């Protein structure tokens, strides 16, 4: 069985939504369509989450479908495993990506392995979602980008929506997917991007990258809020006559390797951009795959623009040096062209 195909909804009306609103809308529809879907976490009920992404869902669907729980990430993730064994489809929220760590054992040792361990008797078709990423000057651990801990953990799918359309379609696809899926919701993008989104049901398939800009000189590969940064850098480059292929991966697992290789074969020059710290970041995996599968297309070293190997800087006045800015990406573009 392969990935679900895209299910567009051509007849649906459209409405302008932020990324946050699109996520909410997707969850709302999922609660409507499948009575097995339940949502829980810290503050997701009455308050609708610290970023208000579950706003209105408890009121509309009831406390038995959307509810607050004791404050424990290992509890939230561990009970979700048990909930699946009784046939529920939990969509759980962690308050920030930096609090995934507190429940990471349940993800690595159980969410990821339960199906393999029971040879298909017990599946874990849950969705784990959380805000992540820098740029808002919140507290420490509120800006982490912990995707590598998940991409290295077998059996987990990893999703990064960057547009409202994708956010809703990927949310619905993630909830429908029979495997555990983690959705990284970028805190900067929650309310900074807006677009028309169909009000009805549709899905965006897991495993298909989105071509943000089409170009032939350099390939920019990225995900999450760095898509915006890459787009800015690519636009600036375009003014200087350099055209970039900008790939929004949308999902890291499954990875759209085909789209990556196709672009690399075209441009021969690659810059990979992510917010997480550099070493052992998912950028390394992508570079390794390119160095294995498209080596002879490369005309320049593969460069990565990423966070430093420290925790995400809590130093507000200077943390823009830590988080990749368009200028740093532009510099990398220049370097791969000069190589």
């Amino acid at each position: 069985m392969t990935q679900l195909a895209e299910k567009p909804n051509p007849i649906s009306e459209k409405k302008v939504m932020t990324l946050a609103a699109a996520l909410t809308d997707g969850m709302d529809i999922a609660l409507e369509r499948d009575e097995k879907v339940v949502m829980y976490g810290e503050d997701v009920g009455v308050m609708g989450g610290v970023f208000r992404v579950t706003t209105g869902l408890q009121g509309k669907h009831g406390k038995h479908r959307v509810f607050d729980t004791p404050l424990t990430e290992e509890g939230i993730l561990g009970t979700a495993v048990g909930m699946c064994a009784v046939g529920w489809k939990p969509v759980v929220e962690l308050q920030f990506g930096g609090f995934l760590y507190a429940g990471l054992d349940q993800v690595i040792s159980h969410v990821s392995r339960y199906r393999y361990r029971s040879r298909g008797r017990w599946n874990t078709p849950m969705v784990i979602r959380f805000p992540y990423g820098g740029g808002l000057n919140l507290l420490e651990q509120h800006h982490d980008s912990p995707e590598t801990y998940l991409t290295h953990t077998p059996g987990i799918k990893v999703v990064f929506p960057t547009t409202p359309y994708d956010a809703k379609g990927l949310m619905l696809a993630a909830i429908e997917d029979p495997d555990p899926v983690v959705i990284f919701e970028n805190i900067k993008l929650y309310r900074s991007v807006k677009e028309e989104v169909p009000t009805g049901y549709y899905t965006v398939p897991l495993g298909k990258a989105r071509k943000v800009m089409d170009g032939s000189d350099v390939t920019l590969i990225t995900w999450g809020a760095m898509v915006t940064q890459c787009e800015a850098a690519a636009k600036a480059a375009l003014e200087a006559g350099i055209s970039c292929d900008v790939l929004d991966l949308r999902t890291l697992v499954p990875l759209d390797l085909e789209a990556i290789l196709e672009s690399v074969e075209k441009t021969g020059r690659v810059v990979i951009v992510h917010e997480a710290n550099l070493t052992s970041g998912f950028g390394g995996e992508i570079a390794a795959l390119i160095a294995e599968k498209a080596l002879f297309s490369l005309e320049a070293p593969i460069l990565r623009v990423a966070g430093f190997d420290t925790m995400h800087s809590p130093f507000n006045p200077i943390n823009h040096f830590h988080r990749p800015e368009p200028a740093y990406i532009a510099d990398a573009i220049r370097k791969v062209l000069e190589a």
Partner: protein
Amino acid sequence: MAEMFQILAPDGTVNKPELVPAFDKIEAMYRQMVRTRYLDDRFMVLAKKNQMGTYAQFGGQEASQVGSVMALQPGDYIAPMYRSTGACIAYGWDLHLVIMYWRGHPEGWRIPPHLNMLPIIIDIAAQFPHAAGVAMGLKMAGKKNVVMSWIGEGGTSQGDFHAGVNWAAATESPAIFVIENNGWAISVPRAVQSKADFLMRRAEGYGIPGYLVDGNDLLAVHHIASKAAEHARAGNGASLIEQITYRMRPHTTGDDPKAYRTDAETQDWIDNRDPIDRIRKFLILEKQWDAEREVALKTEVEKEFAEALEKADTYTKPDPAALLEYAMVNPAPHLIEQQQVLADRIRMVK
């Protein structure tokens, strides 16, 4: 000082006659105890001969495991740990699959569809949040079922012990959490784990009933487990039970207890507090059991084991394809690529 709940004294005489259940029920449990003890020892022999992998015996804990699990009803769930093999067998796990599980045969790892048995958990205490989730899920589904899970006294020091019990308690979910206090966490004695006199003291901090039970008294274990199961089934939520028992065997295949405890201590439990002896004495005193039936039971169990072993031994050899099965329902492309790598590796080794 909490009092340890007991129905049978170690010599098999009855403390609380009014609490003795029907004899056919006791006999059924006694049979499971004899059966699991026999199997447990045979498994260790297999492991020592490298015909099984590392194995964790439960010998000495038969009353604790059989007595608790047999308080369950159809549709109830269990969330076992590595030492719960006795409970799993009494719950109905097919014997040849048990052997194959401990051999690392993929088909032994496949949990049969007729059992609401969660996978055996090695990661100490992680089964408690799972059990809490099952309990919450059962309650939300309006089911009248419950879940039972076990943990060692060592495991009670883990964060997941707390997260799991507190969750089920707070959500008033139908879970029975059983601490099998067998005195040792490998080489570490009970006293290192906690300053509390008894671990069931934790129950009050979760606002749920807590019980201290003689874990080598089958009737006591069964009585309290049944009570907790009824409590849960009636919609009153979780319970925490501490069963005082003893691991009469090494920790696992590779362990030599001489390194950390005296033979005298172990021998004392074996001679004076063996859970099987106690209930057998009771049944004999009550004229519900005799040497003849004992011999017949032994023969029956030996035969059953021989058949299961034969079945396991002659089972289709593991298919290497199993390595990549069940990794994902919708496998990502890299997993499909790895199926090719696996095929290549199989070719190379041949």
